[in-house]
């Protein structure tokens, strides 16, 4: 049985909540044992975890890290230092644990992720870099966390990107699989949030074309995604999260400041100029109502 320690840093516990939505959680709990988890029944109390050295295979860290922050009166950094050398793998669960996230703006001192302060690599836990896997997201997608843990259990080597995220899940963009791609192609923006029609990249702040995640490939609650339901992608898996003004597209004289990943400005504008010249009546109409 693989033993897991779920350690909470500075967090709103959203990743814990998201994890509990995993549809096959019972099966998961038969295959893994939490020596400690903040809300699930576990083998030890937090007090026992910080006072003893309990055997453990994977250290899961949720939330940002600050040298000032404590759990059970012990510095979170000291708890990490105590368990990290013993475990086989460390998983940073969520964008806060990976990049610092929204709590970078909190009053704690020097708030960062375990290995990254936004895009910048930290030196502090550099010796743990090779055993860490980042599962970014605000919150994490439960299937991506669980599938990663099963890969660790099965001793399957995951190929990672520069931020240590498994490429299996993060090599894609959220745009990949979005049901609004036709509207993107022909530059038809959504006029209202929540409607079935239109793309939200042009005016409504959608970051899907430059955000690495599988939200439109591995759906949320097995049914949907933000962009499918008519809300812009907030780019929550990226080191830059959260940005300001998430519902509007930052433009410079009409040109979106952030372009689809790897697409040069000249290429983008050339294509945009062509597609904008045409109106596709089908894409201007409501899908279901005549």
């Amino acid at each position, binding site marked *: 049985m693989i033993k897991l320690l779920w350690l909470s840093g500075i967090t709103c516990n959203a990743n814990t909540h998201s994890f509990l939505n995993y549809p096959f959680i019972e099966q998961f709990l038969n295959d893994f044992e939490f020596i400690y988890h903040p809300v699930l029944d576990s083998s030890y109390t937090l007090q026992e975890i910080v006072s003893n050295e309990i055997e453990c295979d994977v250290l899961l860290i949720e939330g940002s890290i600050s040298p000032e922050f404590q759990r059970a009166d012990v510095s979170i950094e000291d708890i990490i230092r105590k368990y990290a050398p013993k475990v086989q793998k460390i998983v940073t669960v969520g964008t806060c644990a990976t990049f610092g996230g929204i709590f970078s703006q909190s009053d704690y001192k020097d708030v960062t992720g375990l290995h990254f302060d936004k895009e910048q690599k930290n030196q502090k836990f550099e010796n743990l870099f090779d055993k860490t896997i980042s599962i970014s997201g605000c919150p994490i997608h439960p299937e991506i966390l669980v599938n990663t843990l099963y890969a660790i259990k099965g001793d399957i080597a995951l190929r990672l990107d520069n931020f240590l995220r498994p490429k299996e899940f993060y090599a894609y963009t959220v745009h990949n699989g979005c049901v609004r791609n036709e509207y993107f192609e022909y530059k038809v923006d959504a006029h209202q949030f929540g409607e079935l029609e239109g793309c939200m990249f042009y005016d409504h702040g959608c970051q899907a074309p430059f955000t690495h995640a599988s939200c439109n490939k591995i759906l949320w609650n097995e049914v949907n995604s933000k962009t499918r339901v008519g809300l812009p992608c907030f780019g929550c898996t990226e080191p830059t999260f959260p940005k300001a003004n998430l519902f509007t597209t930052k433009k*410079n004289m*009409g*040109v979106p400041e952030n372009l689809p990943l790897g697409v040069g400005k000249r290429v983008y*504008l050339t294509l945009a100029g062509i597609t904008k010249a045409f109106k596709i009546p089908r894409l201007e109409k409501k899908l279901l109502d005549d």
Partner: protein
Amino acid sequence: MTSKKQLKKELIIQSALELFASKGFYSTTIPDIASSVKISVGSMYNYFTSKDVLAKEIIKYISLYLGNKLQNINEEKISTEEKTKKIVEVYFKTASLKPEMIDYFLRIYLSNREVFKNGCEGMICVNEFVTEIMIYFEEGVRCGDLRDQDFFSAFGLFMGYLGGMVFLKGEEILPKALDTYIDDISYNIYKALSK
């Protein structure tokens, strides 16, 4: 296409451009163009299937010519103010050295929209040129030199101004040579667009 055929095609474009710009689109015939490049009317059709097709090729040719010049300016590591001046210079230089190009744009492309409506929808046939203007604007705003605004309000100010000056020159109303206005016009445009 062989390079010889390509050269011939460009020669026809250049010749037709000059004829259209000076005589007008409807007064210029395919035989006029054929005789100006010393080929038969029959072989003209090997290059362009109609006068309308030729007209569209010409505007694309002009757009590519100016677009390339603007791309070079956009790729230079200079301030937006300097870029503004260089764009004005290129436009006026083209209007002086190749007046037919700007004349064609103003007097044929903008004035005979019925010829261009199929195949030159929106700004497709002037895409290279407009793309470079957009890049100039976008980068100007991004670096904090230019004020963010709707693309067309800025585009109209810039190109309307330049087009108007060239038009006045073409009508022989402008008392001085175009290049004597470069400094003032660049200053005015930059002042109007900057923060």
